[in-house]
């Protein structure tokens, strides 16, 4: 940087520190609504509706967390979300890595058409397919079951993941498969023993990504579950009724629902970001 050369190193450091400080302010402003969610969840109803307004709770209490967990089947919602999202993530990763390998390594007639179709399914808004989906899921007896949700979640998140994985396979040299096959492996073995391990960073990213996507789905479970298989998103929105909105409880439930995603994201952040931005920087 030209201007920096005119100043001493101390000046540069001061500038960096100043930049960082402004960065902290920006981050604080962006996260303010998020903090407000947590602060609200720690207030009693009387404190929420107190005038004059107070940002911080006088005496933080976990009462909302206890009551929302006691008054509603949130344990069940939580378990449903966890089970459905984990199985979905595994299902998506296994099918999409196979498909990505198929698309990246083979060239067959009509391939571009098939790829087009896969890409197009990604464009389809959930609202367009959700009613027929409801009918199919009900007809095969999976209405209001975790399996019903898993199947529909998987197909909704699949197309994007195939695309993410495909660019990953393309980055692995073909010679690796060929070498494995010369050593006597079949295609499937070559994929499984030689290519799959190299795809690991991509697999991690795709798994986490799918989990996070599924964790936040709303319209599908709203239509496909009614009692036994309700996930957190539907459960939380269901806390709002015509005559009562207990914001303390809603914010407590929202906080609990957000914690797993945020932790998971922070752990795997590097993989995820690298994968998401790979497409952007490629050009």
């Amino acid at each position: 940087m030209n201007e920096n050369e005119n100043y001493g190193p101390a000046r540069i450091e001061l500038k960096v520190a100043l930049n960082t400080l402004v960065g902290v302010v920006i981050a604080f402003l962006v996260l303010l609504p998020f903090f407000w969610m947590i602060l609200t969840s720690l207030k009693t109803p009387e404190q929420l509706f107190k005038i004059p307004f107070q940002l911080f709770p006088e005496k933080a209490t976990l009462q909302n967390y206890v009551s929302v967990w006691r008054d509603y089947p949130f344990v069940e919602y939580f378990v449903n979300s966890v089970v459905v999202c984990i199985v979905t993530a595994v299902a998506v990763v296994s099918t999409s890595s196979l498909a990505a390998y198929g698309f990246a390594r083979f060239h067959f007639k009509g391939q571009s058409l098939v790829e087009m179709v896969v890409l197009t399914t990604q464009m389809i808004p959930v609202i367009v397919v959700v009613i027929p989906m409801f009918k199919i899921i009900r007809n095969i007896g999976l209405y209001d079951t975790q399996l019903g949700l898993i199947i529909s979640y998987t197909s909704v998140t699949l197309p994007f993941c195939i695309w993410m994985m495909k660019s990953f396979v393309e980055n692995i040299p073909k010679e690796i498969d060929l070498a494995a096959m010369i050593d006597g492996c079949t295609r499937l073995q070559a994929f499984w023993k030689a290519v799959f391990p190299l795809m690991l960073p991509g697999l991690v990213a795709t798994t986490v990504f799918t989990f996070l996507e599924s964790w936040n789905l709303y319209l599908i479970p709203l239509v496909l579950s009614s009692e036994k298989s309700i996930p957190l998103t539907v459960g939380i929105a269901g806390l709002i009724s015509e005559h009562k909105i207990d914001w303390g409880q809603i914010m407590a439930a929202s906080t609990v629902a957000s914690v797993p995603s945020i932790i998971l994201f922070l752990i795997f952040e590097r993989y995820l970001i690298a994968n998401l931005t790979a497409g952007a920087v490629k050009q």
Partner: protein
Amino acid sequence: MVSRNLEMKGFSFSERMNAFGFIFPALLLLAVVMLYPLLYGIYISFFDTNLLTKFDFVGLGNYLSIFSDQGFWSSIWVTIVFSLGTVLLQLILGMSVASYLNTRIYGRSVFRAVLLIPWMLSMVVGGLLWRWIYNPMYGLLNNFLIGLGLLDQGVAWLGIPDLAMFSVIIAYAWKSFSFSMLMILAGLQSIPKDLCEAAECDGGGRWTVFRHVVLPHIGNIVLITSLLDFFRSFKEFPMIFVMTGGGPGTATNVISNSVRQVAFDQIRFGYSSAMACVMLLLLLISSILLNRMTRSDWR
């Protein structure tokens, strides 16, 4: 020699079966749970049906009604306003924060990770959170503005038609701008440092550097990110559903919510399917046109 044999093998029958085998599970799933419902949706769009007792074939009747259905086209308009608004705001936020993170700063990756937290929340949580922030009496925003002396009394942000659209756009952009930020930051960081330095040495001011070095470099990323954002916003349902339910009146009644109302509140599945088909058609046409215009092959 051996490798040539293997290359040749790529065209053999068994290899073709291999290709099919790898792709088959994914295709089967997509066919059963996405394509079949899509075709079935198109099928019932030619009927007047509640899917249980009534199944009357009406031909193109539903589509003809849509043409003169003011409610439908106003939903489309609302969706376009919402989408353009959110894309613009996300771009402004994403660009400014990304530019900031691209300066010399300690802990850039920490900032980047922390700023992605809103993006991790679900639309339902984000929507409820902002509904509470906008609360006329006890919400954070009104009390903040009153505290600053900018307001005398609370404003019903979600209760006044024009304000409601504006408020929903802000909430959505807050929840989603991190993605644009991430993409633009990746773009900015891929600009070779010496390129900027060279431009500055040549006496270019900040604006010149931005105009002639930065913009050409990240232009494509900005464009593609905006397109992705646009299509995502166009399909948005959960956040608006929990914030306003499409109201007040039809001020924020985006197309997804409009389809849901016709289907599940009015139990007119045929007509709602026709609406959904027109929505999909509009999406496909615009995506093809935009793809042609930008000629980008990234996703």
